[in-house]
């Protein structure tokens, strides 16, 4: 009987663990989104450093491989932006996919204005992962609606 109760307690603590892990993930997602869009709009030169050297950015189907190409795109091709984030969701990836490399999937949506023209709705999906105790972007997928 003790064995039975032990199993229930373990299951409950597993559930607790999962609950807390999810809460942690949510916090990371919210923080990331706030930092990313603020830098993109107000401090464009610093955004490139949020990406891994091996990161990949797909902008409306156009692919940019590697930190250098991404930085170049962000500084030379992407005009001044003004993002308005309206929706944010995120999930943790399982070990089955990423092993010990903690990785989070983020889906963000909102509207963006380029050079003061009218705003366009967009959706963006990210994979962020930990490197040297900092979150870095591994995959960035942007689509104008």
């Amino acid at each position: 009987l003790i064995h039975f109760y032990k199993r229930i307690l373990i299951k409950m603590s597993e559930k607790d663990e999962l609950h807390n892990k999810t809460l942690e993930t949510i916090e990371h997602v919210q923080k990331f989104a706030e930092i990313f869009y603020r830098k993109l709009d107000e401090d464009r030169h610093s955004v490139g450093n949020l990406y891994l050297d091996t990161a990949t950015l797909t902008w409306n189907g156009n692919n940019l491989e590697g930190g250098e190409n991404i930085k170049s795109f962000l500084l030379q091709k992407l005009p001044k932006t003004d993002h308005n984030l309206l929706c944010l969701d995120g999930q943790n990836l399982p070990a089955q996919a990423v092993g010990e490399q903690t990785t989070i999937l983020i889906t963000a949506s909102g509207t963006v204005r380029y050079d003061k023209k009218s705003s366009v709705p967009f959706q963006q999906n990210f994979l962020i992962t930990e490197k040297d105790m900092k979150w870095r972007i591994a995959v960035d997928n942007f689509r104008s609606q």
Partner: protein
Amino acid sequence: ITMEATTPPHVPVNSELTEKIKTEMSRRYNVEKKALNLNAFHKSFAGEEMYAPLWRSNVFCKVVEVIIENIPDVQAIDLSNNKLLNVDPLNADFRRKVTDLRILYLKENRVANISYMEKLKGLNLTELNCSGNPFKDRLGSAYTDRIRSIFPNLQTLDDKPMPKKIGFDEDSSPTSNSLPVTQSKFAKSSEAEALVLQFMEQYFKLYDSDNRQPLLDAYDENAVMSMSCFGGRDSMKDYIEDSRNFLKIYHENRKVRLLQTGRLPIVSFLTKLPKSTHDPTTFTLDLSFTSSTFMMFTVTGMFKEREGSEKRVRHFNRCFLVVPRGSGFCIVNETLFITDPTSENCRKFQTTSSMESLKNASSSAQQATTSQEVDQATQRTLATAFSELTGMNLTWSAQALSENQWNYDRATTMFQQAKEAGKIPAEAFVK
């Protein structure tokens, strides 16, 4: 006796002529390359009752109207050999709505003055050809500089690369003109792309049916999935209760609860959402990450609700994270975002359509890999996928693929054509 040419009779463009023009334009439009060939347009009507030469401004205007309405994403237009005196119909309205136009051929026309070309300022061309127009000779050596001042991003002029000019970077900051043209599809690898397209076809077929239960097979036992939405409160009635939008939910525990965990709860949740019909012609696909342990791809597009309180058309963004399972894969993470479509989105929505346009869309990865040899393991994977798609047995599937250099998209097109022509024998489908 003297002769004088009279002005040609004014023939209005009625609905019958409009239909003929549309048909002819559709014949001359290359969907894959987004290129419209209007070279010597009048020749298509030679010897017929209805004559639609492009040099008649009402015909030219009608053609422009058809472009704006049907193919506003056109990237290249050839207007050569049309005796054009000007290109006025390519007006401000045209330039505002047809923003992807990069290539324009105006060879062998009758544009007499560069001021007619100046009216095109704002058209973000990278390639232009004006040879055979009187204004070119008239300008002599000033031609290149004048053209450059109208089209600053031009790279090729009259089939020659634009000569570089040293100048000052007065305003070097990027504008929306420096943004790349939208591509409807990107895939890291074309082999993975074939598998993903097949997966999408099956997934959306099941999702659009009356029973979503079979989707259980698509998910890993421990998969997680969440839905978020944004829109008017009335419009999103069927979704707002379960919308996992961190920016709108106050209680942390609710954010945790709304994560659908495990494939039974996920499919049970999906079954609750309004029944749908997706329109694959509105789809975009980004297969942005592949590795031996997982792939990530995002589909966006539109669907119509077949029931539910509103029966509206919606725009969605769906991100799938899949891991290998058996000879295929299954979903471990999924985010689904739903919102109202823009009026532009709505224009493109159709009710019956197939995945053909997405399959045939050129992907930047394809151009690099077409000449590579396809290894045996990949051949087997492609043959299996093709067999499931067409219903043919593995031998015939492999043969069909082999005949098309293992180009999955081409083999699919060839198969459709052969099937419609009744050229495929019954034995091909015997397993």
